[in-house]
């Protein structure tokens, strides 16, 4: 069995990147995710795998470096935290519009504005619903452990390239700063030029050869009929992603009468809530969305009929709960418990909220 190493979630992102064959990282420091670039700088992957690591002069710069790298079919990524992601939103919509595969890691902290460096989940609207302008989606994975942070880097790159779409790991300060044991997966080499051409040659800017037409990457089309057709193509891609790429897990949901919906670090806290509630005879289970886009719509829909109530728990003032209410569609009461601005809910206070709602 592979060695288990104690590391922070942020460090796991860095090792996951080096070991899954990432070609380039561009970033700018911000708490609580600075260990991602710090670890890369210590490990110096440019001396081993050839992966480029560059500190940009700002988040605006790193997202546009990402655009440049992604145009060439390279596996490129950046990481930041909430205020930095806000600065990147223009770049994100251009990447989505130009159908460029890439990975953005957001280790969320409390907002709005410069906010706090403490953990939060208040970027759900921004990241899952948009952020930038236009009808677009990013594929969003929500890790709940340091091992998830490691594994989701490779997973996110695979999804990004499968659909030519930006992918995001939407984490938070708890998962980024917490140390847990992480199993290092077998090293995957970076793609060779031949492999890159085979996978991305049809669209990437790899240097035109006489035997093919030039590839063009742009998000601009002034003619409305062209732009509408492009949007229809994007929408068809999103429907395909929604049909094929939902990831979720459940915890003690089979016989549950009440359902908690939670993701990321709050999911972990809610596992303790379920165990405590069941000791008191309350039949509670959890649905954990692992992909926030595409959302586990059918899976939640199928659980609703057996429930007397649903409680959505977030480190926000109530964002994902809007999706849960939409899917429950009035069939059962959907309650909400949230802490925000950098505060983390304890298992005891969530249990108390649950008991108050169902009594």
């Amino acid at each position, binding site marked *: 069995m592979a060695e288990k190493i*104690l590391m922070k979630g942020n460090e796991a992102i860095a090792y996951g990147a080096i070991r899954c064959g990432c070609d380039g990282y561009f970033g700018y420091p911000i708490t609580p995710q600075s260990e991602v670039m710090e670890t890369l700088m210590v490990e110096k992957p440019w001396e081993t795998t050839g992966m480029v690591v560059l500190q940009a002069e700002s988040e605006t710069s790193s997202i546009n470096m990402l655009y440049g790298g992604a145009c060439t079919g390279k596996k490129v990524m950046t990481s930041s935290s909430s205020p930095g992601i806000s600065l990147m939103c223009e770049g994100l919509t251009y990447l989505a519009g130009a159908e460029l595969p890439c990975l953005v890691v957001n280790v969320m902290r409390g907002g709005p504005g410069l906010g706090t*460096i403490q953990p939060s989940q208040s970027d759900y609207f921004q990241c899952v619903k948009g952020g930038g302008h236009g009808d677009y989606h990013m594929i969003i994975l929500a890790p709940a452990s340091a091992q998830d942070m490691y594994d989701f880097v490779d997973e996110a790159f695979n999804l990004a390239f499968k659909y030519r779409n930006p992918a995001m790991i939407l984490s938070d300060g708890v998962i980024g700063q*917490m140390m847990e*044991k992480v199993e290092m997966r077998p090293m995957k080499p970076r793609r060779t030029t031949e492999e890159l051409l085979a996978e991305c040659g049809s669209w990437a800017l790899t240097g035109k050869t006489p035997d093919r037409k030039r590839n063009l990457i742009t998000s601009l089309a002034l003619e409305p009929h062209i732009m509408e057709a492009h949007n229809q193509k994007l929408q068809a891609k999103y429907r395909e992603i929604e049909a094929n790429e939902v990831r979720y897990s459940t915890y003690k949901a089979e016989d549950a009468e009440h359902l908690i919906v939670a993701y990321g670090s709050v999911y972990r806290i809610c596992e303790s809530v379920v165990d405590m509630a069941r000791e008191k005879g309350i039949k509670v289970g959890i649905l954990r969305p692992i992909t926030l886009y595409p959302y586990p719509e059918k899976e939640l829909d199928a659980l609703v009929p057996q429930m007397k109530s649903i409680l959505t728990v977030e480190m926000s003032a109530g964002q994902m709960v809007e999706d849960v209410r939409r899917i429950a569609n009035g069939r059962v009461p959907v309650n909400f418990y949230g802490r925000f601005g950098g505060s983390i809910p304890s*298992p005891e206070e969530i249990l108390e909220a649950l008991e108050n709602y169902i009594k």
Partner: protein
Amino acid sequence: MKEEIIIAGFGGQGVLSMGKIIAYSGIMQDMEVTWMPSYGPEMRGGTANVTVIVSENKISSPILSKCDTAIILNQQSMDKFENMVKPGGLLIYDPNGITRHPERKDINICSIEAAEESAIMGNTKAFNMIVFGAFLKKKPILTMENVIKGIKKSIPERHHHLIPMNEQAIMVGMEKVKDIQTIQ
């Protein structure tokens, strides 16, 4: 077996690294572990704390509102964490610099003069391992063999010559820990 520990004190006392050594020793003993540091404004104000959970089973919440053991190394931390110890739990503290001693009647309380003992050893860096020794004496959840392996994993190789000093400091802590209050 599951042990939930909060370690709290000043930055520079080795609070975070003691937590890391406990966590790595737990891994060496084939247990599940989480290590959650304070990294927020309190850290920037000079105090540091870390929550470490060592368990034979999968760990759900890494966030605690109650703990089995609180290791307290300054007055601010005493004020903040004394009430977080579960009834019947353990509070270990270094009386050096403590103006208000613990007042709970429903918990076990021990003291370890780690600042003084590290001065006697002539090595103030031994402080956190003396405290760790006091903890291990009262809660022998980790074998010494796994603790040494955990230390090896936690510190860079260039510092491995300091492992015997760390081991000695742990022994001092085990020997010098004092029971202040023992409840049934």
